C-alpha cells in the first residue's frame, strides 16, 4: 500500500513539474488519437448519413455488421494493419510500419464502425415528424438531411467522443504497428504497459492519471456543448 502511495505522490510530482518525457508521451498520444478521430469523423458522418437517409437492400444487415465491429479486438486490427504495412505486405513500400501514421491507420479502422453506428443511431433518433415538417415546408432532400443532421448534432458529438475515448485508450494497435519506440511511437498506453512490466509504478501511475485527465477534459467540453 505504501508503495502505491509513494508511486502516487511521485506521479503528482512528475505531472506538476511537467516532466519532459511524460509531457512528450502525453502530447504524442493526444496528437495521434485526435488525428485518428478527425479522419474517422470526416468519413463516418457522411457515410453514416448516406446509409441512414437511403433505403437499399441489405441495409439492416450492413448496420448489424457495423455494430458487430464495435467489439473487434484491437490486436486483430493490429494484426491486419501489420500484415498490410509490413515490408512483404501490399502497402509495405509506404514504409509506414512503426511510425505514428501506422497507429493512426489502425485507430481509424478501430473507431470508424463505432462512429458510423452511433451516427446512424443518432440520426434515427430524430423524430420522424420533424422530417415530415421539413418536407412540408418545402425542403428538398439535401435540406432535409442537413436539418436532421443539425438536430442530431449533440448525439453525434457523443459518437465523436466515444471514438476519441476508444482511440486514446487502446494499446494493442499502438504496440503492434507502432512498436513502442521511445521518442517516436511511444504513447500513454504503451508506456504504461512497458513501465509497469519494468516495475516503474510511479511513472505508470502518472501516465495513467494523465490519460484519465484527458478523458475528463474531453467529457466536460462535450457536456458543456450538449447543455447549450
Amino acid at each position, binding site marked *: 500500500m505504501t508503495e502505491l502511495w509513494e508511486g502516487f505522490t511521485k506521479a503528482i510530482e512528475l505531472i506538476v513539474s511537467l516532466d519532459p518525457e511524460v509531457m512528450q508521451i502525453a502530447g504524442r498520444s493526444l496528437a495521434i488519437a485526435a488525428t485518428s478521430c478527425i479522419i474517422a469523423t470526416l468519413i463516418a458522418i457522411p457515410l453514416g448519413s448516406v446509409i441512414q437517409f437511403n433505403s437499399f437492400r441489405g441495409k439492416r444487415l450492413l448496420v448489424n455488421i457495423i455494430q458487430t465491429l464495435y467489439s473487434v479486438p484491437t490486436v486483430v486490427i493490429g494484426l491486419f494493419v501489420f500484415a498490410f504495412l509490413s515490408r512483404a505486405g501490399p502497402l509495405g513500400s509506404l514504409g509506414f510500419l512503426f511510425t505514428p501514421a501506422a497507429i493512426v491507420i489502425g485507430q481509424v479502422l478501430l473507431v470508424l464502425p463505432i462512429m458510423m453506428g452511433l451516427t446512424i443511431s443518432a440520426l434515427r433518433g430524430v423524430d420522424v415528424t420533424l422530417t*415530415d*415538417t421539413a418536407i*412540408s*415546408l*418545402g425542403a428538398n432532400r439535401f435540406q432535409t438531411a442537413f*436539418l436532421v443532421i*443539425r438536430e442530431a448534432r449533440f448525439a453525434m458529438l457523443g459518437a465523436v467522443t466515444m471514438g476519441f475515448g476508444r482511440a486514446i485508450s487502446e494499446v494493442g494497435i499502438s504496440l503492434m504497428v507502432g512498436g513502442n519506440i521511445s521518442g517516436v511511437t511511444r504513447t500513454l498506453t504503451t508506456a504504461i504497459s512497458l513501465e509497469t512490466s519494468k516495475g516503474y509504478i510511479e511513472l505508470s501511475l502518472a501516465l495513467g492519471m494523465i490519460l484519465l485527465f484527458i478523458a475528463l477534459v474531453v467529457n466536460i467540453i462535450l457536456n458543456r456543448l450538449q447543455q447549450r
Partner: protein
Amino acid sequence: MSNNEPIIQTTDLGQRRNGRDVLRNINLRIERGKVFALIGPTGSGKTTLLRLLDLIDSPSQGKVYFNGTDVTESGKQRLETRRRMAFVLQKPVVFNANVYDNIAYGLKWRGMNRDDIRNRLDDVLKMVDLTDFHKRNARMLSGGEMQRVAIARAIATEPEVLLLDEPTANLDPVSTTRIEELITDIIQRYQTTIVMATHDMSQGQRLADRVGMLLTGEIVQTGGWHEALNSPRNREMARFVGIENIIDGVVLSSEDNVVTISTDDSIIEAISDCAAGEPVHACIRSEEVTLALSRLSTSARNTFSGEITRIITTGPVARVEIDCGFRLVALVTKRSAEEMALEKGRQVFASFKATAVHVIKRD
C-alpha cells in the same frame, strides 16, 4: 385560368398500407379561397389524406391535381408544388433553434435573402403574437405557443393552400380559442385556401365554409354544414354529427313525400321520398323533440307518451331520456325542466315535427 377551377382536385385517390385500404375513391374539389373541413372520427384517414394532398406521400392509386396540373408523379414538380402549400402537422414539432430561426426555415429553403426574411418575419411574428419570444429556444415553449410557431412557420411562406391537421388537438380551451382566432385572422388577411382536418364538429362549423365527411377511409358526404348536420348519408355519420335519436323502422306508406314509418309498436311520420316497404333509420335531433305534460294540439305530426327514465342536467340544458316504446332523447332548458317538474318515472308527451325527421335508407 377560370376562378371556378378548383385549386386542388383528386380523382379516385387511394392509399394502401399493410395490405389494407386506408383511403378509397377520394374525389375532392377544393375551391380557391375557401375553407374546407375534413370531419371524421379518429382513424378515419384524415391525416393520410392531408399527407397525400401536401404531396408528402405518394398515393397507391388515383391522382392529385394542383391548379389543373397532375402533380402525382414527377419529383421536381412535387417539390415545386409543395412549396406553394404549407402543412401544419397535428403534433407541433419545432426545430432545436430559436423561434425566429424556426419560422425562417421555409423561407431559407426557398432561397430568400436575409433582409427579405426579416421584413416578412416582423409581420408574421406580430400576427402570431410571438415578437417578444423570437430569441427563445422554441423547444422551451408551451404546447399552445409551439402550435403558434408551427402556424407562423407555415404562413411565413405565404402558401396558396394551408393544410391544418387537428390544429387544436391536445390544447387547453384558452389556447384553442387563440389558435381559432389566428386561423380566422389568416382567412381574412390572406384569403388562403384552407383544408383542415378536425374531429371537432363545432370547430369545423366555426371556421369552415364546406365540409367533407370522412368515414373509414371514404368520403361519405361533401357539402355545406346545414346538409351535413341535418341530412347525414348513413347511420355512422348520423351518430358522428350528434344525432341521438336513430330509430329503425320500415316505410308503411308513402304519399306526396309524406311517409309513415312503422317501428316496433309505433308509427312515425316523416318527409322522405322512400317507397313503401323500404327499411330505414329515422333520425331526430334531440333538440327537435319538445316535451309537454298533457297531449297538446300542436302542428307536430308525431306525439308519443312515455315515461322519463333519466335526466342529466349540464349547465342550462337538461337531457331527458324517455321510454315511449322506443328510446327517445329530448333536450330542454333547465328552466322548463324545473317548471314542468320533470323527474324520473314521470309520464310526459314527446313531440316532433315530420320535417324534423331525417330518413336514411338502411343497408
